[in-house]
Structures are given as C-alpha cells and as structure tokens.
C-alpha cells in the first residue's frame, strides 16, 4: 500500500512539473549554452525515476519525435516487466538505420546502481531535443544510431527504490537464490527496524567496544586506535537473525550478480561469485545479447555502473589478458584518455589490473564475443563533492562534511535508540540509501552530461567510410582499370583485432557494378603497383579490415561500361556507395 501511495505521489509530481513548465512562455526563457532551449518533453534531471517513471520518459520521447526515437520492447524481465530499448537516429536520412554504425548504451545492471538509467535517459532526451538546433547532433544522427536500454535490470531498480535498502542493496537481480544452501530461500534479509525505508547501521554502547563517535562530526563512527578504549560496537546493517541460524541478514534478496552472467569466459559461482546458472540464464541479459547479435552494426558500447569515478575497459579477468592486443589497446587508450578530460575526477582504468579480476562481465562479452569497443563507467565519487581528490578511503569524513555543508543533513538518518530482539538496547542511524553511491540532485545533470559527451565522442569515432577516389584508366581494346580508394575517416577500424582473430564479423566487401568484371585485386602499394588478386568472385572484393584513419585501395579490370558504381558493405562501417 505504501508503495502505491509513493507511486501516486511521483505521478502527481511529474505531471505537475509538466504543467508548471508549459505555463512558461517561450519568450520568457533565455537559452543556456549546450542545453536544448525549448524541449518538447520537459524532464527534471535532478531526481530519480522508478521503472514506470523512466518508461514514461521513453514513451514521451518516442511520441514527440517519431522520426528520431523508436521505442522497442526487447524482452521480459524475470518478474515480467517489459525491457525497453530506444533506437535513436535520423530515420529520414543516412540510409537504412540498422546499417549505420551503432552505439549501445545501458545502465543499472546492478539494482542499486540506478543513476545509469538517468544518464542513459538524459542521453536519449538530449539527442532528440538538440537535433533541431545543433548541427553536430544532426550529423551524428545522420551517420550513427544509438541503441539505449535505460535500465537493463528494471526489477532490481524498483526493489532498490521502493523497498527498504541501503546504498549497496540489492546488487543482485530479483530471482530468489538460496545463498546459505539450507533449502530455504531469501529467509534472512535486512529488516527495516525503524520503518523509514532506509537500511542504516546498528550500534550499541559497549565499554569494551572498538568504536567511538568522531569528536569533529557526531554522526560519524570511527575506530579507536590500538591503544585506545572505545565505547561502541558496530553491529552491521539493520536486521535480525530471522531464521535462528546465528547469522544476521545472510540470505537476503537475490543473490546473483547480473554482471557475472555474460558468455565470455563465464565461470560458475564457486569460481566467480555472483554467477547464476549458466551464461545468459538471466532473461534481461539474454534479451540484450540476442539484440546485439542481431545488430552487427553495433561498433561501440557503454554501460553505466556506480561508483568510484572510473572509465573501465576489459579484460575483466587476468586470464583474458591476451585477448586485448596492442592495436585495440591503442584505440581504447585514445578513447579512455579523452574520457578523463571530459569527466574531471574520473580515471581510465583496466578492470582486472586496477579493480578486481572477474569473469563473465558484460564488457568482456561485448568485446570478446562481438568485437565491440566497450567501456563501463563507475559513476560518482567523492571528488565531485568539493572538486578535489578525497584520499581518506572507505570511512572518509568528506561525505559527512558534504552532507552537512551542501545537503543540510538531508542524506543522513540521525542516530536514535531502538530495542532489538537479539541485541537489546541499540541505536540505529546512518546515511540514507540515496547517498554515498548516487549523485545528489544538483550534480546529477552535470555528470550525466559529461558522461554523455564521452559516449558521443566514442560513437563519433566509430568507423566512417568514404569512397574518396575512383580512378579509371583505359587499357585499350575495351578494357578499363578502375581503382577505388576507400577511406575510414574515424579512429576505430571496421574490425577490432579480436574480431579479426576469430572472424567474428565477415570481411568488408567492396564491389563494382556497371561493367563486366574480368579481374579484381587489393592494391597494397599503388605507386609500385603491388597487388593481390582475388580469383574467386572478383566483382566483390573482400578486405579483412579498413583500419581507422586509414584507407584501402582496390582495383578491377573491367570490360565495357562507362558508369561504375562502387559499394562498400561493412557490418560495423556501414553501407556506402558512389557512382562515377
């Protein structure tokens, strides 16, 4: 019942906000640079939206911009919700939309890491609302297509938002798992003892305790030094031993990790904690994987997590180090370094080296199995509080200070007494679930914009093919030599080296029509006339790769014809044609 009231209030707030905005006349608004001036869909980007809320945004965008935004349901979640995807491009120009180089974006794979959904939704909104007034966006959507799954884990999203949780819970999806293997499922999770919707901490006065109250900040508990006497014990998260096995909160919601479910070097849960039954045994991930396999034009991908301020690339596992070779690392490095510039306080890092070694992650499947350059951004860190690094570590005082100075203690549940059935007289208090890993409202739009800019850069650098030169030379007796130069004017190759290694995608095909083709060849050196002939089917010359910021030259000997059409068909580079 409580949930329904909350939802109701949310709906009223959203619709109320639309009414207020439409009350303002266009003439009363003065454009802030870089932000759409008169958005058709008014959205406040300083708060979070639950499942229905984010679907509503997507629906409004699709309705307001039918030529730019298409809403698709790509599958059902474990609890039966629709898993939505927004396909955003200029549907009126640039050819077959699903042949344009694609950028895939998702957020919220971990249930508690919800702001990725707002970042992804902001991106969709920004693309649609800026299209009319910004040439860069127009060009981008002419050339490329964005596939955006704002929340890849809607069940978990709503649990985080509507059920009592802390900032870290639940990480898991919502399919019940018997974590303690006693035959009972989810029988001992958190208990919201004070009924405030937040799972905070429990502390108890103890003359032999190892903690005390920070004299500089009375909300913060600190560990006393080895030679000091404390006066408090910390008893963990709010909860009781519901099943009487001597453990508190040991079998709660889930537990499996949707980001250990991907079918590249997947390992079972005794090797990789968090793995579910088998790769893609989670319906949400399977729906995305099936979509990606049907869209070989996806050349770049981004997933949003929290937190730590990191721009992560694979490999996830040390065992996979050899998968990422030098050519690809160069592309990743160039993109990642740019990301560090665009998003101050974020660091470009490699998962297995700089974070932890992990199997079955999403970014490894995208790259390892599909050859797609992929990043995972860990959104938000303490740097953003005062725009300076915070080196104090896990129990830093900075968030307490920030909560006091800038949020006026809105993020903290003050300590208060409680009588616990197992621990006796204790106190409950701590940060609310919306603080610590999530952006406060006033920083949400700013960071969403910066991260979006990084994805635009990433997308911009997917291959763009141009037939830059066609040279026709008369060889006499009706024979002509046609030489075509195909350039890739962006940084990414049409095939990542992982792709080349396993032939994940088919070669790029450069073909000639308009004459009878006698012979065809790939020209290695035009000046010295070094070429490799393709004996079989010479009208369709196969090239393994068109490298970034580079070109390939192909040549045909043809009989007859005066107008020739050259076509380049590249799964990740698109379809380009020129008649001369």
């Amino acid at each position, binding site marked *: 019942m409580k949930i329904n009231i909350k939802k109701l209030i949310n709906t009223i707030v959203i619709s109320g906000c639309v009414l207020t905005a439409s009350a303002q006349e266009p003439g009363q608004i003065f454009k802030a640079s870089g932000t759409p001036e008169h958005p058709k869909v008014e959205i406040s980007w300083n708060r979070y939206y639950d499942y229905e809320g984010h679907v509503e945004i997507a629906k409004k965008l699709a309705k307001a911009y039918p030529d730019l935004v298409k809403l698709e349901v790509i599958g059902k979640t474990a609890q039966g919700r629709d898993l939505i995807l927004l396909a955003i491009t200029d549907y009126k120009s640039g050819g077959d939309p699903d042949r344009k180089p694609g950028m895939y974006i998702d957020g919220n794979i971990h249930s508690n890491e919800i702001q990725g959904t707002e970042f992804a939704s902001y991106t969709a909104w920004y693309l649609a609302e800026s299209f009319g007034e910004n040439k860069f966006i127009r060009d981008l959507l002419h050339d490329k297509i964005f596939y955006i799954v704002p929340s890849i884990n809607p069940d978990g999203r709503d649990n985080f938002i509507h059920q009592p949780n802390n900032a870290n819970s639940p990480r898991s999806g919502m399919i019940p798992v018997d974590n303690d293997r006693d035959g009972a499922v989810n029988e001992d999770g958190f208990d919201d003892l004070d009924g405030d919707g937040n799972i905070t901490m429990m502390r108890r006065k103890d003359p032999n305790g190892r903690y005390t109250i920070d004299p500089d900040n009375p909300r913060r508990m600190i560990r006393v030094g080895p030679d000091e006497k404390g006066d408090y014990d910390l008893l963990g998260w709010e909860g009781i031993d519901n099943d009487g096995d001597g453990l508190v909160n040991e079998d709660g919601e889930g537990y499996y990790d949707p980001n250990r479910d991907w079918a590249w070097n997947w390992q079972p849960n005794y090797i990789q904690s968090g793995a579910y039954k088998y790769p893609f045994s989670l319906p949400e991930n399977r729906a995305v994987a099936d979509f990606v396999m049907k869209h070989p034009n996806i050349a770049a991908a981004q997933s949003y997590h929290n937190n730590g301020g990191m721009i992560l690339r694979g490999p996830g596992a040390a*065992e996979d180090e050899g998968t990422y070779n030098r050519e690809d690392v160069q592309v990743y490095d160039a993109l990642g370094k740019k990301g560090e510039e665009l998003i101050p306080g974020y660091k470009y890092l490699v998962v297995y080296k700089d974070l932890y070694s992990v199997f079955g992650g999403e970014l490894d499947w995208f790259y390892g*199995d599909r050859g797609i350059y992929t990043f995972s951004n860990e959104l938000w860190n303490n740097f953003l509080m005062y725009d300076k690094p915070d080196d104090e570590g896990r129990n830093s005082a900075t968030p307490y200070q920030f909560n006091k100075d800038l949020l006026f203690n809105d993020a903290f549940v003050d300590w208060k007494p409680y009588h616990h059935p197992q621990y006796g007289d204790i106190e409950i208090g701590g940060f609310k679930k919306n603080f610590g890993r999530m952006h406060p409202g006033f920083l949400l739009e700013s960071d969403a914009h910066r991260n979006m800019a990084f994805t635009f850069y990433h997308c911009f650098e997917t291959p763009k093919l141009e037939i830059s030169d066609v040279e026709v030379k008369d060889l006499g007796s009706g024979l002509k030599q046609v030489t075509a130069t195909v350039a890739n004017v962006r940084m990414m190759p049409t095939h990542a080296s992982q792709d080349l290694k396993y032939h994940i995608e088919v070669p790029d095909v450069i073909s000639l029509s308009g004459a009878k083709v006698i012979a065809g060849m790939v020209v290695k050196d035009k000046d010295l006339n070094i070429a490799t002939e393709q004996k079989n089917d010479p009208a369709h010359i196969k090239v393994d790769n068109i490298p970034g910021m580079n070109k390939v030259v192909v040549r045909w000997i043809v009989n007859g014809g005066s107008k020739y059409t050259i076509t380049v068909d590249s799964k990740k580079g698109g379809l380009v044609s020129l008649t001369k």
Partner: protein
Amino acid sequence: MIRKFYVTLFAFAVTLSGAMAQDYSTYAALSNRVQALAKQYPSLVKVKSLTQTLGNKDIWMITIGTGNTAEKPAIAVVGGVEGSHLLGVELAMGFAEDLLAQSTTDSIKNLLNQQTFYVFPNMSPDATEQYFAKLKYARSGNAKATDDDRDGKVNEDGFEDLNGDGEITMMRVEDPTGEWMTSAEDPRIMVKADVSKGEKGKYLLFTEGIDNDHDGAFNEDGEGGVAFNKNMSYNYPNFVSGSGEHMVSEKENRALLDFLFNAYNVYAVVSFGPYNNLSKPVSFNKAGVSKRIISSWYQDDVDVNQLVSKTYHQIIKEKNAPETPNLHGDFADWAYFHYGRFSFSTPGWWVPQTKPDTTLKQKALTDKNGEANYLRWAQQQKIEGSFTPWTVVKHPDFPNQKVEVGGVDPFVMMNPPYKMVPELVKEHTTFIEALAKMAPNLDVAHVKTEKLDDGITRISLDVINTGALATQTKVGEKTNWVKDIHVTLQSNGQVLAGKANQTIDAIVGYGSEPLSWLLKASGKVTITIESPANGKKTISLNL
C-alpha cells in the same frame, strides 16, 4: 485362414512397436517408444517435452518413479549427447524400457519407491535424424542455420553424394602435392605420409563433395548447426565450427539445464557419449585443483569414480576402450565441473581390438585412427556395408585429375550393428541399477541424551551416510546449485550450544559426521536431517 494371417501380422506389428526394435530409432519411432512407456506404466512414468528444437523435434524427458518424484534422490540419464552416436539414444531409451520391464520385481519396485530416474533419450534429435535421411552422414549439429566458415553465407557448402550411394564417405585426388597415401596395413585405408620415414604422399584427401563456394575448402559450411556436446559452459571452445556463437546458446542445452539446475535431488548424471570415465576413471591432478579455474576432479570424487568404474568393469564385458577424445564444451565435463554432480559417461561400445588371424598371415595392427582394426573386426564378424570401395568419379573442381570416392562408411565405428544393441542395453541397465544401489543415503547412529543438571540436556548423534557414494561431490560443496545436508532441531526450550539450524558439507561414502547440542528444554525434541539428493531422516526424542 485369412483372418488367422492378419492376427499373426497384427501380433508381429505389436512386437515391432514394443521393446523389440530392429534398427536404431528415427525421431518418430523414438517418440512412439517414449509415449508407449507412458501408456504402459501410467503410475511409474511421466513424459514431458522440455522444448522443441529448431527442427521441430521434441526433447523428451521421461520421469520414472513413484509418489513425489522431485523429492527423491535421482539419477539423470542422458542420451544423444553426440548426434552421430545413435547408440547413446538406444542405451538411454533402452534403459528406461528395461528398467520398467523389471518394475514388478521386488528389487526394482523397491528402488523405484526410493529413487527417481530422469531419462533424456535424445539431446540431438535434429542431428541423429541424418542417419535415416536420404543422404546419410555423421552429423553433430542441430537445425540452426550457421555460418560455419564465417564468410557471411549460411550452409552454402555442404556435402555432395558424388558416387550416388546415399552416404558421405571420403574423396581422394591423385596429386603431386598430396600428403596422403594408402596404408601398408590395409590398402583401403588412407594415412598421412611420414616424410621422416622416407614416405611420399600421393593423394589429396577431402570429405565427399564439391567446393560449392569456391573458397578452397570442401564441405566446410553445410547443413548442421550447433552441436549439443560443444555448447556447454565448461572449457567452451569460442568460434569453432559447431560450438555456436556463445556458450549455452541452444534451446536444447538451455532446456536441459533449466530443468537440471532446479532438480536438486539429482546426485549423479549418467551420459552416453564420447566421454568415457567408466572404462577408465579420471585421475587426480593436484595442479588442476589448485588454480582458480579447476580442471581436475577432487581426490574424494576421483575415489568415487574409481569405485564406480570398478562396478562398470564387473558388468560390461568389452574391455580395452579407447581413451576419451579431447573434448571442449562437452556435457559430461559440465555435469561435474559446473553442475557439481557425480558425472559418469561412456560411449557404451567401441570397436573391439582384433587379434591377427595367423592362418591369413595377418599381423598386429598399429594404425592410430583404428580404421584398419575396424575393417578387420568387421570382416571377422562378417558385417556388410562397412566400407565403400574406392571408385572413380568425375569432379568439376579437379577436371584433369583422378578422383575416387570411398572409405569407411559413416556411423559404423561408433554404432555397432543393431543386433548387438539389446545386449549392450541390458548390460548398461544393470550398471545403472548397480549405481543406484550405491546412492548416498542419510541415517543416524549413536543417538544419546545426557541429563547434565536441572533441565539441561546434551544430545549427541552421528549423521551417517549408508551409501557408497558421498552425499555430494567436493566441487558440489562450493556451488549454490547443490544443497548441503540441512539439520534442524525443534524444541520448546533454548539451545545453549550447537545450532538449531545448520548445514553439513559432503560426507564420504559410509562416513559420518558427529553433532551435539546443549539444550535447556523438556518434552519433545525433533531433529530433522535432510537433503534433496540424500533423503530425509527425522528423530523424535522425549526429554
């Protein structure tokens, strides 16, 4: 007179459709056999289709047992693991039929009261059907359209029956660059020339067909998609022909796994396929269990494999099985390493090692691929249709060269003549029944209550495993998908020491685990010891 004739004919037909199959079963015939069991033993058999393949064939699951079958310890029996291994289908299906045929005997009646059998007769029905097709060839892949050579075209270069005999064998081309020559042991067999021994090749060797897509490779992308036994998550081969686009991508694999992961009562998986740890048990490799990704069975589980293999040898007459081939993404390995269950597998039959016939001045054979041995055995057994003599054909890709088609026929080296099958089924049924008798089983011993003082009682007991197999595998101790033994104590009082609710890891065969509690309680105390794969034991005490 005529009526009598029809009656006889009818009786004959009934016999045919019953247990007495005369050849390997088509999909339709197998489906009939499956349904016939459900009809004949309605109280013991439940039949279900787990899924339909892309080739519109049901993946059958036969549940054999009594009462609440999901709550009794179970063995899963899996056939059709490898699509060209028709025998595996027969062994699984035949097991179900033979077991049920004995269901009126006391021993099997008793077994079916205590345990459940899940039989999956054929995991590769799209592939096995190729055995009965107009064009017969050994096939592993299902009906998914795959681009095996990853050139953007699907199924564009399959086999061609160049000699028109309805089956695909080999094709040799006389060529100065050829690396192959005829074997000195049997001139019908082709072997690779060993340059270091001064041998020189004379032939190119391909499978029978044309290079339809002119890419230089023969028959590399024909009908036949993803192989069940290459698509599992353990040791999965990425981007190999037949392995699929990613692990566990196929409906067959997913459907079976979706069932098995929820079947916590399964303690052992018996599969019939190329993997063989019954003729020769796995050996322990310490380095293999000390890495993050383990590649060896744990010692305790190796001990169990040795015991079970010994039982297999006592029942199965044929010895000298070949080594397990090098497998990747296979089912039997998955069943141990990722499912955490005891996994036992055998091809069920292999070509016996022949003895040279001295009267014919034969010598012992040394050939590696076993073809010469097979031909000698086939000759000794007077088996027809085992070899297609090399005959010259015209070949568009080699217009000016001598091309011959011939070689050992498909299927014959993995699938014996059908007349041998009933005996093999009988032996393997006996083996699975023997395995079931080794099942782990929970009991208690040495139950003791000691009054200490004023309402304080110490209860102690040993949880014992009366079975020869451990209550779970060592690898199963680590996974979420195997349940521990769960012990609960209910009383009206207080537990002062020990846990009212606890779990126990693996107890080895005939092993025990001591437990004790200190209680401040009176009256009735109930202790329940249970695990889905080991059964349940309840003790009631009165303090």
